[in-house]
């Protein structure tokens, strides 16, 4: 079994339940490494990884960078918002240049849906999608799955509602695929102007009111509401959004059971989530962050050794 995930990790839609479980099973023991005094294993020694971020991102980039460093890879960060890309260089040229520098893996974040696949189709290196447009953010989806599985033991028959701006959310799509493949029931809740019209065809329930979602769910994954959605005319105001769709202590208190609270961050406290919920007893938001590093280590590990160049070099050596 030399390529358990194939060459790239582009999204969860195309992974099987077995592959997803394998990533989670691999990530679990890796958490221990981050507890050690020397938080480093030599697994990816000599591998070169480029973190190619065409969009501002602090938390995902840092999480990947920690994961890479804890696996002993050599990493280079390219914040492409300030690089030659804005000077008219196409993604094709970027890809060719990377290839010419003999790198082993690329972690790419890009504002355009499909950009990770575009790159993966054109270079031999492993490509990890760190978020492409409004398509997928597979490692975020995986860390959410790991966080829930740790709490529940299994996702089978559990009910997870994704709340907020599903239309523009890559996190939502990765969550929907991952959760469904592992047997959970999935719902979305938010203003219809922020839900894709065909969302039910993806096999999820839809709740128009957050109260209904809270009554139904075992966990809420609360998406960040991009502030530009208001200027874009999708919702009238943040104030009203919080009043109608915000996850508040008061609303949660009416629930019959304990509901786990997830949020991919960064949070707009007082908009989609209130502080006493974010910091409350059922919040697993910081577990998500911890698990993020382990998930990314697992993905790096499972993709490594599947790079043709590395394999050739090893044979030659």
């Amino acid at each position, binding site marked *: *079994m030399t390529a358990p995930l194939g060459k790239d990790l582009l999204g969860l839609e195309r992974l099987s339940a077995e592959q997803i479980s394998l990533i989670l099973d691999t990530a679990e023991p890796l958490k*221990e490494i981050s507890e*050690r005094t020397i938080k480093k294993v030599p*697994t*990816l020694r000599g591998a070169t990884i480029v973190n190619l971020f065409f969009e501002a991102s602090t938390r995902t980039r840092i999480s990947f960078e920690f994961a890479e460093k804890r696996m002993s890879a050599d990493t280079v960060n390219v914040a492409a918002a300030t690089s030659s890309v804005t000077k008219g260089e196409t993604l094709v040229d970027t890809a060719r240049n990377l290839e010419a520098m003999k790198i082993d893996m690329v972690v790419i974040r890009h504002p355009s849906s499909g950009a990770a696949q575009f790159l993966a189709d054109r270079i031999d290196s492993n490509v990890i999608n760190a978020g492409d447009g409004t398509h997928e953010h597979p490692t975020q989806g995986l860390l959410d799955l790991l966080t829930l599985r740790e709490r529940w033991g299994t996702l089978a028959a559990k009910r997870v509602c994704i709340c907020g701006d599903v239309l523009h959310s890559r996190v939502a799509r990765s969550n929907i695929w991952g959760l469904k493949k592992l047997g959970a029931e999935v719902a979305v809740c938010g203003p219809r102007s922020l839900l894709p019209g065909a969302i039910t065809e993806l096999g999820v329930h839809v709740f128009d009111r957050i109260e209904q979602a809270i009554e139904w769910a075992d966990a809420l994954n609360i998406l960040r509401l991009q502030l530009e959605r208001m200027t874009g005319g999708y919702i009238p105001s943040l104030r009203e959004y919080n009043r109608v769709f915000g996850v508040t202590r008061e609303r949660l208190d009416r629930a019959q059971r304990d509901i786990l609270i997830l949020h991919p961050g960064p949070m707009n406290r007082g908009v989609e989530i209130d502080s006493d919920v974010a910091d409350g007893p059922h919040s697993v938001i910081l577990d998500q962050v911890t698990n993020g590093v382990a998930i990314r280590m697992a993905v790096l*590990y499972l993709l*490594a050794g599947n790079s043709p160049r590395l*394999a050739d070099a090893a044979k030659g050596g």
Partner: protein
Amino acid sequence: MAPSESIVLNARALERTLSRMADEIVEKNDGTDDLVLVGIQRRGVQVAARLAAVIKEREGVGVMRGALDITLYRDDLQTVGPRPVVGRTDIPVAIEGKHIIIVDDVLFTGRTVRAALNELADFGRPARVSLAVVVDRGGRELPIQPDVVGKLIDAPKDARVDVFVTELDGRDEVVLLQGPGA
């Protein structure tokens, strides 16, 4: 053609072997003070548990135990790709000043032990590290020798030696497989 199979140790022989190994470990350590048995995933962990049980029976003392998964320290990731499942590493005590006995089922090339030594070093600096194996089948590729050996056999390079333990395999047995498909 199926590989030919011969039994190296049956259940009773394995039991005797483990008892003797436990005695040797205590003797080499001059008692049980500061002794930590660290099994290598997977079957080394069960063997370490058996050895600890024997020591407990003989000496009335529970020795400390740990587990090492060396998957992430292997030197063949780039050639054979990732092993699908990474096991748990669990070193429950500070290893400074301790006598660590690395326990594994079979000693062959020595590469696993090399990886275990590297991994152990990332947890601290033990006073001493020894190696105990159920079977030493020869064929070393690195300068590594065991301190405690259950059974020494000279198996050809293409043969396979499997140690079965009841906890994982439902039976206690050591088997040598030779010929095609071994």
